[in-house]
């Protein structure tokens, strides 16, 4: 029905916007082992995530006691970046677990 041309081929425009160019990011080198390492458990403070991480903390204490865990809360709501906390973890930790997030 468009332009009265049913049954014939129509030329129409694409409604989709332009995606951002994706820049690949390299992962940090992984740890050879967790023995003796400090792993930060990062609570994004969303939907009882802190309560969940307490259980992750308990799991490490029971199953991998050589791993030192530190539970920290993000500085504000999970939607905001938190460079202060990331710098602290970089300076004092060997790895991190963030959960439970969107």
């Amino acid at each position, binding site marked *: 029905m468009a332009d009265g041309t049913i*049954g014939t*081929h129509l030329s129409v425009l694409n*409604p989709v916007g332009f995606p951002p160019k994706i820049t690949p990011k390299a992962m*940090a080198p992984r740890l050879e082992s967790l023995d003796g390492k400090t792993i930060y458990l990062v609570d994004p403070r969303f939907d009882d995530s802190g309560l969940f991480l307490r259980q992750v903390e308990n799991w490490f204490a029971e199953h991998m006691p050589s791993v030192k865990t530190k539970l920290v809360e993000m500085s504000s*709501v999970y939607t905001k970046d938190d460079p202060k906390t990331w710098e602290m973890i970089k300076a004092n930790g060997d790895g991190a677990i963030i959960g439970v997030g969107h």
Partner: protein
Amino acid sequence: MHAIALDSKYGVPTVAIHTNAFEKAVQSVTRMHGMAEARYTFVPQPVMGKTAEQLRAYVDGKSPISGRPVMQEVIEGLTRPAEGDRIKEVKFERSTPRLVDSDTDENLHRSFLDNNWTDTLPIVLPTEKRVSEMLAHTSRKPDEVAGHMRSNQFRQHWEFTVEKIAVNAVMAGARPEYFPVILALASSGVSARGSTTSSMAAMVVVNGPIRDEIEMNSGTGAMAPYNHANATIGRAYGLLSQNLQGGSLPGDSYMGSQGNGLAYGSVTFAENEERSPWAPFHVRHGFKPTDSTVSIFTGCRSTAFTLGVREKYWREHVRSMLRGMDAHSAPTFLLDPIAARQFIDRGGFDTKEKMIEWVYENALMPAGEYWDYQLIQNYIYPRATFGEEPYASKLKAAPDEMVHMFKPEEIHIVVVGGETNGYWRIMGCNYQKTVSVDAWR
């Protein structure tokens, strides 16, 4: 997204734990951020409200996605070296073609539907002729970059031109003379298809001379589907949002758990300036009465309504309505002109500012109850604990002490309706911005 930053930018091996409802969204976000190898695992949805024992069972259990032990995936995520193969999934150079492959009318309609380019209702196909007619109603060039948009903070912005907006305006059935309003909405960068589990919709209030120029409705049935401009401008805003931000697909780029029927038309209407006893909405936000503007609100999940402003108990009625609102989304009062004048008669509110101040002072809740709301816990409590005011002071209140639910600057009033009766409602929504329409003529 925080895990990606901590891992790639700060060099800290990181694993993210998500709930299984976010599987596709997590894959999509990690790809779009260029880290297809990001390490993550999943536990069952929900975490919220579970006991310690139930949460421990999640930790001890298996990922509902992979079927492998959660903690095994966590430990491997921290220790297993990068493989370098999944990076191939990332497409580094992409472009969106200007035209769709030509086809029959019927096949194109099917194609647009299958590509999730519609709101699932029939659209008007954007032929060159129709798009050209739309573009004739702005002085802006078709290839001018008109803005950027994304569905939430964790996704990257997409870019769009004036022509791309015109394509979506045609699809919505909008007439060319509406185009400056639609351009203003798109240029705001505020998405009407935000991806939040809370199922948002947008609300659009149009002010100034453009209302009459394009025959928008501010009177009887203004928020209902009885006016072509109101309906198609609102629909265009939704369509352009989903198509120009990179999609709005449930489970992938749209995570609204229940959805929101108001998103079909984005509650688009004109303020009834002529029958309002107060200054127009846009004048409170720095514009002249002769300026034409669109004001955008997001949220639109909670609402309360009643008839009239009763002499004896109007204060109690309003307080009860406010208490029934979601404490995280501030109230915008949508008042029929009859109700607006009644508020002046009852409360002496001869300006919107006076009524807003009264609402602020009367929207109260015991502190213990306020802080226990999950939305307040998620979005306000963290800010309070790190000293942000007025939340930090509010956090010091005793559990039974009454605290303000909202900030004065979050409370708004718009007059709309045809005076068939003095109905009014409160819409729980967050004001985003007011944008000039004149700049897009």
